[in-house]
């Protein structure tokens, strides 16, 4: 009997209702509440979709994870199309190795090609129309190349929008190169993507309010709070003091 069961399990015809096997290898996120909810931590490979507003602590949530990813495999960390200049202080302070870090800002070469185009006036207009649609494409292309190459640990991408097919393609590339990829999206984009993990972040006085929208191999759970008071006391409205120092504006 057990031989038969074994065989069926191996052929994936039998499914245990109680076992919650993790579909991916987890890396501790550095925040105990999050690790507990995600059964171990954030996925080491594959896509992580984060729906968030800018500036509420989304990068702080990931910093320990990024540091581990980079240190564990000695591979690159790639930031593609960040919304503003990245500050070295913050990243180095979190223990990231800056020499193993790439920043890709597509669209920068516009100036370079403009020189060529200026020399050949005829093609200037054609060139510009080609440029417009390609900045987003270039970011995705760069992401795919980085993921596939096998020499990047994690790629962070700030896309304006991402389609289902593109996400699927990136997921495959990430699996191929054993890399993980974090996609930051606006909360308004509700399109569900084929990803390993999808979470929504909301601001909270003590840190972040996290909702797990989708996790491979598990059920959705209730929103929970991630307390950042220990790691980032300065960036929390501590409950005890209550009184803000001052108001400006």
């Amino acid at each position, binding site marked *: 009997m057990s031989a038969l069961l074994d065989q069926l399990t191996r052929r994936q015809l039998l499914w245990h209702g109680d076992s919650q096997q993790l579909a991916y290898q987890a890396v501790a996120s550095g925040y105990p509440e999050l690790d507990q909810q995600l059964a171990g931590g954030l996925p080491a490979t594959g896509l992580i979709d984060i729906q968030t*507003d*800018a*500036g*509420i*602590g989304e*990068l*702080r949530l990931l910093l320990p994870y990024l540091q581990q990813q980079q240190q564990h495999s000695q591979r*690159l960390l790639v930031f593609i199309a*960040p919304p*503003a*200049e*990245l*500050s*070295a*202080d*913050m*990243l*180095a*302070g979190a223990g990231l190795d*800056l*020499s193993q*870090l*790439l*920043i*890709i*800002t*597509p*669209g*920068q*070469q516009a*100036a*370079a*090609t403009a020189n*060529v*185009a200026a*020399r*050949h006036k005829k*093609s200037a207009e*054609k060139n510009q129309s*080609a440029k417009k649609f390609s900045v987003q494409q*270039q970011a995705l*292309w*760069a992401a795919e*190349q980085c993921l596939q*190459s*096998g*020499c*990047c640990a994690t790629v962070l991408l700030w896309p304006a929008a991402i389609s289902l097919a593109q996400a699927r393609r990136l997921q495959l590339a990430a699996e191929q*190169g*054993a890399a993980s990829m974090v996609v930051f999206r606006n909360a308004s984009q509700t399109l569900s993507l084929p990803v390993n993990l999808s979470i929504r972040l909301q*601001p*909270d006085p003590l840190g972040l309010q996290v909702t797990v929208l989708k996790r491979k191999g598990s059920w959705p759970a209730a929103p929970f709070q991630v307390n950042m008071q220990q790691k980032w006391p*300065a*960036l929390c*409205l501590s409950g005890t003091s209550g009184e*803000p*120092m001052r*108001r*400006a*504006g």
Partner: protein
Amino acid sequence: MALFLYLHFPALQLDNLQHLAENSQHVAIALVDQQHQLLQLNKAALTAGLKLQMGLASAAALCPDLQLLPYQPEQQVKVLKSVAQQLYQLSADIALDPPSGLILRLDGMLQLYDGLQSYWQALNEQLAMLAYRYQYSCGATPYAAKCLAYQQANLITTDNASLLAAIKASPLKATELTEPQQQQMIRLGIHTLGQLLALPPAELARRFDSQLLSYLGRLRGDYYHALEYLQPDPGFSRYLELLYDISDSTVLAKPLAKLLLQLEQQLNRANCQCYQLLLTLFFRDSPQLQLSIGSAQGEYKATAWLQLCQLQLENLPLPEPVYGLQLDVNHFAGQQRSTGALFEQQDARMSALQLLSLLQARLGRSAVSGLTLQNQHLPEQASQRCLPLVKGQTSPSALVLRPAFLILKPEPLTEPVTISQGPERLCPDGWQLTGQRDYYIGRNQQGQWLWLFRNARQQWFVHGWFS
């Protein structure tokens, strides 16, 4: 005894053109000189019945759809040099005999190859790969070999007697004698080289100029014939004229691949790689366009270079059709192979440097950068973009409470903010009090953590946000 081999390429420029351009086998092509004489013909033209030295009118009458191209001696010499470079792997002493011949000195090489036959076999294989038509012959002196090669004697032998007999039977047409000299000889009843050689030199000296005597002396081997043997070039430079103009930059990859393959062969032979290619595109009206294609790791493989070139070409709008390509490599470097760990879990498809060159080729050099931490107190100077993947010196200790994102040009604060920490006073150089900025950390109503400053005039700005 000295032994020379002469290789004569009767249609080098045309063969080279045809080798590089596809689908040109069925087109009759001829090269013409300034006097409108046919100098080089391809196979299709020969089957159409055209002959060398024919005038244009009769050629056009025989073959109406004949394609004509100008004969460019300097172009042909370039091709000849590249042939010599490729044969240099097999034979040490090669001298150029422009515009279409190579002189190879054999007596030094025979010991290495253990005989003439095996040497010729090795050389023949290499020549077959080059796909140029050629005529050849051995000879005791360079001029003797040349004379026999012009007649397509195709003699490969060390036997002195048979070589001498062949020389003696050669017509004067195959020699270096000028047209008037040949006429003169024929009037004297001298039709073969043997007859000429039989005459005593003293008699010849009375009737003819010293040029003829020096030629005969070198032919016989009495006079020393100085040859300038080839030294291999350190770089790579090839020009390719396209058979038809190309207006689509993606189509350029096809002819470019052939040039890159030649580069790979040369790099492979020298056990080298290169870090940068210079690709020049020639246009009919616009000035030429030079692209520099770099690889941070260094490559020798044609496929790797082709990928990098294609990425760069894809982005490139061509102002008008391209008629020629030139590929230059100025500097070769020794090959370095990176060593990988034996028990590495996942095998990386490419190294970080290869990835970098790939990204730079497509997105441009300025789009990819690294980040360094400088020892500066002003936030905008503390983080600086740098060349990617450069192992910097030990960076100063970081200030942790800094925003993740900095706005290059601070924006005025427009919304109510709750200040939670501050102030931290930062002053630009020299502690000018007018330029002082008091930094605060604030949280707006959407829960975003902003990095604000107030200047000396009590104006509030957002300089970044914590993320």
